[in-house]
């Protein structure tokens, strides 16, 4: 939300660090499978 609503630019180190923390701790490591034809 921070960069989306213009609170800070997405390139701000604090925003990038927050994005990295979300990416590292709140994402599903299983991901989504690609279609068999593309896997």
């Amino acid at each position, binding site marked *: 939300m921070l*960069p989306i*609503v213009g609170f800070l630019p997405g390139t701000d180190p604090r925003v990038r660090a927050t994005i*990295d923390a979300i990416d590292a701790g*709140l*994402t599903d490591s299983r991901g989504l499978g690609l*279609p068999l034809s593309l896997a």
Partner: protein
Amino acid sequence: MALVYRYRLHDGLEGEEGTFLICTFWLAQALAEAGQLGSTMQMTASTRPSTTIYTTPTSGTLLRTCNVQGVPLAINVAAADRLISSPLLLSGPRPSCGQRRSAGTHEAKEDEKGASWKMSYDMLEPGQGTFVLRRWLYMSGADPFKRPDRSMELRPGPAGRFAAFTEGENHDDARAHSQRWVRQPQAEAAR
């Protein structure tokens, strides 16, 4: 990157917490704002007919939206940004750096019949201090569900990143937060 959870710890509710699509879009859009989205984005149709997967080959970003049919398609960053923004219906003119608003409303929809979010926000000390979300609503189709009125503050935290606080508690300590949040209504119902 794959799909994004709202939180990872047990919240006291039955069943397994799933990834949250709209959060995934927010993260993807934040990545785009940070210039970390790949220069090309490939949209491919998944094996599930109502699901489309978006992948960025350079960053490995995976995005998914529902109710979109598609065939493999390559699009550039500008188109990718529109694609990401289209499910996230920002209310009012999109703010840009240097033209920040002190308050506003953000609305996000997956589709006309799907889940939608609407929230207002205050920017305290824009660019420096605390960002506050208020009246966090979650609505899903014809069965709107309103979470308890509350606000969440994002404050500069450790490791140079923002930390989320709700009612003064660090939301990163999700166990204590969610236990109280979930169990309080249950305790009231038992009276």
